[in-house]
């Protein structure tokens, strides 16, 4: 589903105009991004948590040459769905 369709769904469910919904979605995304950058996890009620996780550096082996290298650690944005959402979607 594309963003436009999703906005349509939100607009229907919240009795907002599509334009408003689009605007609100964009703003909330901006807020989420800013807070993520500030080192905060985002609690999305009914959905889950968006947070930045650290992946540690590790030794990797090139499968062909057998060369050993250190893959540098990095930060990743991960989404942890809430138990509620998980359950609902398990049998979807």
């Amino acid at each position, binding site marked *: 589903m594309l963003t436009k369709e999703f906005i349509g769904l939100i607009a229907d469910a*919240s009795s907002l105009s599509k334009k408003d919904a689009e605007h609100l979605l964009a703003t909330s995304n901006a807020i989420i991004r800013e807070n993520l950058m500030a080192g905060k996890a985002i609690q999305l009620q009914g959905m889950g948590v968006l947070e930045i996780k650290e992946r540690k550096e590790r030794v990797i082996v090139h499968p062909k040459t057998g060369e050993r290298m250190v893959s540098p650690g990095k930060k990743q944005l*991960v989404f942890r769905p809430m138990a509620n959402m998980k359950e609902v979607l398990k049998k979807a």
Partner: protein
Amino acid sequence: MAQKLSWTELRRALAVRAGVSEKTANAFLTALSSQLTEALKRDKQVKINGLGIFKLQAVAPRKSVNVTTGEQIIIEGYNKVTFSPEAGVKEMVESKGERTTAKGEKGKEKREEPVDPLQKLGAQAEEIVDILEDLGQSPKKRPAKSKKKEKLAEQPKEPEIPEVPEVPEKPAEPEKPAEPVKPAEPEKPKKKKKEHHFLRDVLICVTLLLILLFGGYFFFRSQLGNWIEHLLQAQPPIETVDPAVVPDTPAVIEETETEVKETEAAEPEETPTAEMAEPVYEGWITTEPMHKASRLAWMSKRYYGSKVYWPYLYDANKDRLANPNMIEVGTPIRVPKLSAVQLDTTNAQTRSTLERLKKQALER
């Protein structure tokens, strides 16, 4: 990441930023969360611009075993929610990661600073010096038999300095004690650096030194005594028993000479044959370029029927081979014709020649 942006905080921020009432913001957000679930149910995938894609991923059913009973069970398939951030967001997060790691490093440094290891080391060093002085005094009182012991007492205080005079003090000591003493020296500074179990190490060092010194002292006293006795005994006889001694030595020399001759006689037989074997090949069977995955030993097996003759191959190509184990691909290898004697492994000479060639090859 301990901090969390709560739902209410998000709602308020959204209301302020978008210029709407908190109520509408709330309506929007609740609609967002409920519709996300709905949309995932319907389409299995929801793209949200400016954030990423939520996907519903199917996990296939799989067999498993009940750990306690060993029963086979089937874990049913299910769907799980995955999220992959948009490219821009991903980059942003990664760049943020760099910054945070930098911060983390700074934090670590700060943590280390308050410990002030230098000060601690300094304090410990002072304590150790005190203890060492105590230790140093006690042996002085107890034995005080020889100068060496006094030195020992001093040693712990300044481990490096007193040991230097030791060596000249015992000039008669050739190398045996001097060598073991020296290794003890470098150990001490190391231990100082470590500061772990320093006292114990010092004690061990001191006892070791004591043992060494005593051992060396007695050893050399006896040795010196023997030597002096020898000298004393030897000097007078030289005048008297000269004739007796003189014939003796030549006899010995003769013996050794004969021995040498014998060995030489044995060797020359080998060496000439070896020399013969080295240069005198009856000719060349062929010249084969070294190809990948080939070995001298394998070539030897192909041409002569056994791997053991590879040293001949090496010998015949000495001029172009450095290491028999690392031959460059494409190097032309001359394959010499070998005489029946050269191929006879039951022949002792041939065997020794092969051995020698092998040694030569491997020593290169």
